[in-house]
């Protein structure tokens, strides 16, 4: 009885911010958790209903229709569709070509729905399994009710259901039911079902985006995509917050849509590869040299980000050419080719830069400092600083990196993960979850007042570049215009690196320290003049280690 009375009075208690009202004999409200009696009383509208001193109706808040309160039925894939749409729109706002959303991603998504038998099929996955499912989870009243309902519904209203899912619009007249969970969320909660039917997960939305971006040859690498996601430019954490009003999340939906961490680079890449195989995608269009994702241009971008001289680009391109990684046949992705995998364009470009640096400066902790000394001498002689000095560059970049890393850590510490609209795991927990959310909000408001800080932290606009050089508030002076100087020598009419050997710990033979002088003489002979004929296997082996290091620098 009380439940009915207080059902529409949902204001939090002023003392303890719980919504747990009881009605006293006199018809006043009191908080059941802190026993705070408030002024507001139950107002009687219909005197005929009053029996004795009991009150049975209140005038505040007209009864909302049940449909409005519980929202309409929806499928989990509709939720993911909504998230994907939002993510695509965020990418479009960043300047990605509009084909991404309407042609590529949309087609991928349709293909996915079809292949996973969630739509565009005569045997939808959900109605097939729901019959078996009806007894398997007796504990959930909602689920059992749901499956009975949907069984009848899927037979009669099949066309309607399909039209709901097929387009971008998620409108469609469906019957309302008492449950508020997505209809098929129980399917998603079993790992076996998920694997079997290749059902959606949140990291898979990023895989979809990555594949679409790759197909479109947009200048956003996977590392960029993950960074934009982490910075909140692409909706991912709590993306379900923006669901339309009538799509209410409840119970197990939380397990599907709630995100407590960002997927790793490797994970998204694997997901994307599996997805490409699942979708049976053809060979991707090869990258043209005008495309920003092409290693040549990507290297240019990274050289700028790393504050390295533009002159290096020639050498990077040369290494790329020698290694054969600039060819059309290499710069593509064929899901069905043997030993296929998605190319890490960002890591490839970083590796090219690292190898180039090693060719020019050797980077064995001796040669680069010698070259720096001679660059300093030359600069002194010429009374300017037009020659690139590795030592100065290292100090500048190192300092900027330390600062950037600290800032990143602080941003991580301040990152907000929890949704403004929490999902209730069950009706029983609803009041607790709501209350906790309120307490958090009140505490945050109080401390914001105390510190006088802005409740909404400012957000930088998304940018491909994270470090800025040569500006007043940047990380340090710019070295882009510097010449390489004595690191490059003219020999037989063509420029060659003055450093004769390629130094790499994994390639050098192991000699004890006492035989250092001997080993130095051995190294060049075992790997004689690598630079004229660097072949891909060695490059790949080399890339293994510095690639990861370079990733840290640039990603």
């Amino acid at each position: 009885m009380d439940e009915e009375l207080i059902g529409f009075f949902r204001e939090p208690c002023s003392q303890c911010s719980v919504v747990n009202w009881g009605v006293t004999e006199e018809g006043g409200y009191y908080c059941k958790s802190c026993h705070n009696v408030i002024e507001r009383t139950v107002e009687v509208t219909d005197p005929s209903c009053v029996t004795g001193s009991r009150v049975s109706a209140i005038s505040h808040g007209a009864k909302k229709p049940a449909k409005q309160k519980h929202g309409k039925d929806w499928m989990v894939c509709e939720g993911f569709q909504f998230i994907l749409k939002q993510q695509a729109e965020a990418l479009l706002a960043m300047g990605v070509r509009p084909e991404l959303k309407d042609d590529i991603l949309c087609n991928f998504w349709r293909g996915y729905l079809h292949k996973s038998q969630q739509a565009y099929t005569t045997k939808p996955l959900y109605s097939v399994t729901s019959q078996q499912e009806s007894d398997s989870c007796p504990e959930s009243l909602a689920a059992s009710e749901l499956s009975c309902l949907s069984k009848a519904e899927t037979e009669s209203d099949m066309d309607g259901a399909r039209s709901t899912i097929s387009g971008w619009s998620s409108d469609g007249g469906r019957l309302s039911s008492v449950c508020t969970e997505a209809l098929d969320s129980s399917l998603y909660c079993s790992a076996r079902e998920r694997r079997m039917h290749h059902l959606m997960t949140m990291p898979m939305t990023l895989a979809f985006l990555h594949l679409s971006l790759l197909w479109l040859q947009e200048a956003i690498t996977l590392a960029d995509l993950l960074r934009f996601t982490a910075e909140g430019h692409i909706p991912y954490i709590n993306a379900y917050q923006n669901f339309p009003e009538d799509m209410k999340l409840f119970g197990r939906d939380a397990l599907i849509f709630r995100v407590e961490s960002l997927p790793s680079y490797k994970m998204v890449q694997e997901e994307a590869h599996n997805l490409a195989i699942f979708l049976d995608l053809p060979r991707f269009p090869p990258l043209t040299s005008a495309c920003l994702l092409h290693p040549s241009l990507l290297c240019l971008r990274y050289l700028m980000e790393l504050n390295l001289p533009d002159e290096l680009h020639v050498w990077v391109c040369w290494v790329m050419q020698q290694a054969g990684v600039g060819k059309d046949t290499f710069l593509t992705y064929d899901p069905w080719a043997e030993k296929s995998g998605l190319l890490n364009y960002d890591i490839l470009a970083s590796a090219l830069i690292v190898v180039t640096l090693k060719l020019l400066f050797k980077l064995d902790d001796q040669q680069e400092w010698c070259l720096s000394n001679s660059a300093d001498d030359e600069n002194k002689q010429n009374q300017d600083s037009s020659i690139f000095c590795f030592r100065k560059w290292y100090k500048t970049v190192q300092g900027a990196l330390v600062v950037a890393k600290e800032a990143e850590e602080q941003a991580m510490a301040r990152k907000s993960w929890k949704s403004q609209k929490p999902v209730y795991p069950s009706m029983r927990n609803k009041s607790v979850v709501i209350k906790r959310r309120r307490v958090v909000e009140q505490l945050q408001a109080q401390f914001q007042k105390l510190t006088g800080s802005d409740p909404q932290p400012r957000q930088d606009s998304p940018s491909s570049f994270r470090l800025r050089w040569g500006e007043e508030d940047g990380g340090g002076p710019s070295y882009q215009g510097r010449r390489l100087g004595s690191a490059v020598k003219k020999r037989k009419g063509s420029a060659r690196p003055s450093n004769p050997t390629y130094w790499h710990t994994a390639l050098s033979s192991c000699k004890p320290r006492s035989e250092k002088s001997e080993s130095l003489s051995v190294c060049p002979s075992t790997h004689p003049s690598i630079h004229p004929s660097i072949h891909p296997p060695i490059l790949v082996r080399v890339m293994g280690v510095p690639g990861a290091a370079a990733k840290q620098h640039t990603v």
Partner: protein
Amino acid sequence: MITNGCMLKSFKVTEEKGNPLPPQREKKPKTSPCVLRCGTAYGNLLAMDDISAEWMTSPVRDCGSDNDVSNDDDDEDDEEEEPIRKRSKWPDLPIPAPWYGETSKETGFHRSSRLCLNQIRECLLEHRWQEAAEYLISYFQTLEEISTPRQLLATEIIFRLGSEILHQHPNSKLEDVNHFFDLMKNTGVRGYLKISLEHSFHLLLTGNFDDAVRQLTTAESWRYGKQSAVQADKMKLIHAYRGFLSYLSWISKKGSSSEDDDGDVSAIQEMHTYFRQACISLQEILKLPGVWDPFVVGYVNMLEFYNDHEGALNVLKEYAYDSRFPPNPNAHVYLYRFLKRQGSTEKKQIRVLKILGALVPSHELMLELFSLLLESGTEQSLKEALDVLFNLLDDCSWKHSVAAWTCFRNMIKLLRRKKLKHLLEEGWETRKDWWPAFHFRTYHARADFQLSRQLLLMKVVVASTLVGNSKNAFSACLGLIVPANPLGRCFPTQSTFLLLGAGKEQKHGLGVLVNP
């Protein structure tokens, strides 16, 4: 006249001296994950390791329901938890609960909260309250943790961090603090009483005595399903502190009524009411084994005022000698002081002090024991007095005490006079291999000389008597003297020491040393 401020000061002092630890901690480890410590409320810089350490002693049952959303406001919750505890049959041992550090499977959310906590800790250690408060805004989201143990931990951490920051932040007002405490009380109902108690401590520290009393009175009447029963031991503490505050009110009333002698009848009446209130609660808490120093002092003080010396003595004896209570030197100190005030026999006083000496050989009252023993004058008591001195000087906190060394010098003279020097040998036997290094090194002499000449002189006498026999010891003694000589030229001969040892005048002795 005793004002509120004074009372608070005395409150603080007693807090520091005695640290009433509820004994339930040892007896029933399952009852409370974080046992209250009365003295730790404020002023100490909060150490996060303490939180984790305390959390580690939390009961294992908290780890049971990992994936449930915690439901601490629900009475049903307890009904559910009860059978789980019975079923799992975990031993009630303080097995460390997992402390959430960096792992490979850590989610981004947990990484964020870990980093955030680290940042706050750094800020607190460096007293950057503003920044700490800013980070705390982000940290509040951990209250929405899904797993129950983590959620409970978050409540605890946020409560402690928040109260510390609000206590120190320049912009924080009393209303802020009250609002924060009220919020926290209703969030973590499992810690309601503890937070209430801390709240009243905070109010006491900021000088709001009446509010603190009100806070405790509210807490006393708090009922919340089974939650209030679970926190029964906290309730006892609340009662005790409520009584203690009544005692403080009693003191202030006593101070004001003794000022105007004619004595307002109603004021005396009021004072009696406070006395009765305080008596009832303090009596209750003193029945439980524990360290209740401030409570005992207050209770005895009141009893003495109303001339119930018998009762006071019984309370003190119970407190000192009951074997259920943890060994507590202060209990014996209070008993001794009471006996001294009452002018009881020396024998009784000596007996109490001897027990205290067994517990804390370096206690400051040992000098009083020494003089008491000297007064009785028998050979046995002289031997005991010497032991007391030796034990006292074993402790490095007495190393530079002029009084202690003077007592030793007097003792030596006395023994010599009574021809009981063999007593000295007995005590020296166990110390002769380490006392020279401990007391009689050159740099000791230099430091002592800078502190006071008197001290050096006393030590010289003692050293020459104790170590004078062997050659090695003599050189140690020589080291003691030589740098102390400002002229640095004269080297005292053995005769100098004989002169000194024979107990010449101090001035003369020094004169001999400086200008031989």
